């Protein structure tokens, strides 16, 4: 079980959140209500997704103060503390794409020759900006129209309907199409958290001396370009695209990786 610590912690966090959100509708709990678009914690503290908020503002609608305050709280949290942790610790789609990725490895679909690399990882930033432009042009929060994240969350809370097709599509795309296709290439929400969390304090630290170059970390990492320093330098993973999932730490047999606090004074 040693190499499952952070994986299990993440699953517990993700599932607990979904249960709490589900209970808010089904049983009237007041712990976390709403959805990731906008929530209410203990019936008092507002939370809102920054990218969703930006899209609504892009349509030209002047949002209520609750949403603006909620977005600010979320921005500050991930900017200072969590980094891009939303993607791996909160987002329900992460469970879908992790499953696809795991199956990919089991089914030998991970080989270079069957991985379609027709999308670049930076595509998500284009999509993120495009989403704001489309929101402004069409007059509706454009990503929210098709966001599998909130479709899945609302599906769990209020019932899926045909929305389940979107989730299956993401799964198939990641399994048979592009490796880490959704979370690592397309998702504009993930892109927004990459930008927000780029300077956060919690970071994965690499110890070059302990590393045996087994490359297990690079195999499991959904954004493995961020681990460029493995077996080269003893530095922290400072790329904003790292989701702080901790999977690399789990699989490392040599204690060469671990969570640490970023030290801005050290070069």
């Amino acid at each position, binding site marked *: 079980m040693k190499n499952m610590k952070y994986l299990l912690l993440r699953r517990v966090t993700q599932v607990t959140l979904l249960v709490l959100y589900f209970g808010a509708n089904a049983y*009237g709990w007041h712990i976390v209500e*709403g959805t990731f678009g906008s929530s209410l914690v203990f019936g008092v503290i507002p939370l809102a997704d920054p990218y969703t908020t930006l899209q609504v503002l892009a349509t030209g609608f002047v949002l*209520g103060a609750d949403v603006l305050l909620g977005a600010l709280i979320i921005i500050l949290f991930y900017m200072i503390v969590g980094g891009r942790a939303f993607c791996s610790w909160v987002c329900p789609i992460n469970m879908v794409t992790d499953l696809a990725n795991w199956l990919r490895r089991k089914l030998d679909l991970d080989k270079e020759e069957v991985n379609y690399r027709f999308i670049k990882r930076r595509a998500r930033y284009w999509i993120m900006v495009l989403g704001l432009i489309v929101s402004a042009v069409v*007059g509706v929060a454009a990503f*929210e129209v098709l966001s599998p994240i909130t479709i899945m969350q*609302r599906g769990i809370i*209020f019932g899926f309907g045909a929305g389940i097709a979107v989730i299956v599509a993401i799964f198939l795309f990641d399994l048979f199409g592009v490796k880490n296709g959704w979370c690592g290439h397309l998702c504009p929400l993930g892109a927004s958290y990459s930008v927000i969390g780029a300077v956060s304090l919690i970071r994965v630290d690499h110890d070059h001396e302990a590393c045996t170059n087994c490359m297990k970390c690079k195999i499991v990492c959904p954004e493995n370009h961020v681990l460029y320093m493995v077996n080269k330098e003893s530095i922290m993973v400072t790329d904003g695209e790292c989701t702080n999932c901790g999977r690399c730490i789990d699989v490392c047999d040599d204690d060469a990786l671990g969570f640490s606090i970023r030290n801005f004074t050290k070069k």
Partner: protein
Amino acid sequence: MADSNNNRRKFMATTLQSVGLTALGGLLWSGYSDEVKASPLVLRPPGAIAEEDFLKACIKCGLCAEACVNRDSNIDRETGKARPGTLKMAKGGDHRMIGTPFFIPTEVPCYMCEDIPCVPVCPSGALDQASVSNEKGELDIDKSRMGLAVVHKESCIAFWGIQCDACYRACPLLDEAITLEYAKNERTGKHAFLLPVVQSDACTGCGLCEIACVTEEPAIFVLPIEYSTGKAGSHYVKGWDKKDQERVKDAKEIKTKNIRSEKEASDYLNMEVEY
């Protein structure tokens, strides 16, 4: 030199490609978003701002629907169990903008709670509390305009001469939003028609009449206001209405010039229509 030229070409090509693909994506995305926006016959929660703005504002959090289903009054009187809520969150296949709240009167109408639990919880401003509050700032559900009921005379059995006042009695604004108009039944010569008439200045569009209606398909039903009302236009002035007449007290004569004005009104109105 040749190398840097190659690099520049490659850079230009990939930039052009990125811009081109973004434009393609933008067109598809805009087209799709614009189509899914078009779900006209949808009834929104109380206090919802105009549909065009509502679609911009709604952040799809579901707090209104959660407040609706979990309200204290939402208990089945016979079984003592919780009932389904009025507000549903549109999901794939509902053919309404995904993630937005709506209701279908024939499934669960709006029971017009006095404390309107669904409105104050809205964080984005898509549900406007001021529009369902009275002058004193207290919540007043009677002010909500979720839609407007319409009676289809041909299928309403009251218009056949059969006595039915199901909608009239189901209306929470009894004798205000639906009134009964008495008329003589000329067919029998001795009976009365009791005809339901919707008063558009009082009807909130809650849909309790629609679910109460006894006909196979409801003969009274709620439509969004912009679909159940017409518009005479500002160029009609009620000459017998002092206030309306005020609008034109400074009016000057305007000569309209278009294709029609080439002929006298009496000429073009009596012309045969060309199909």
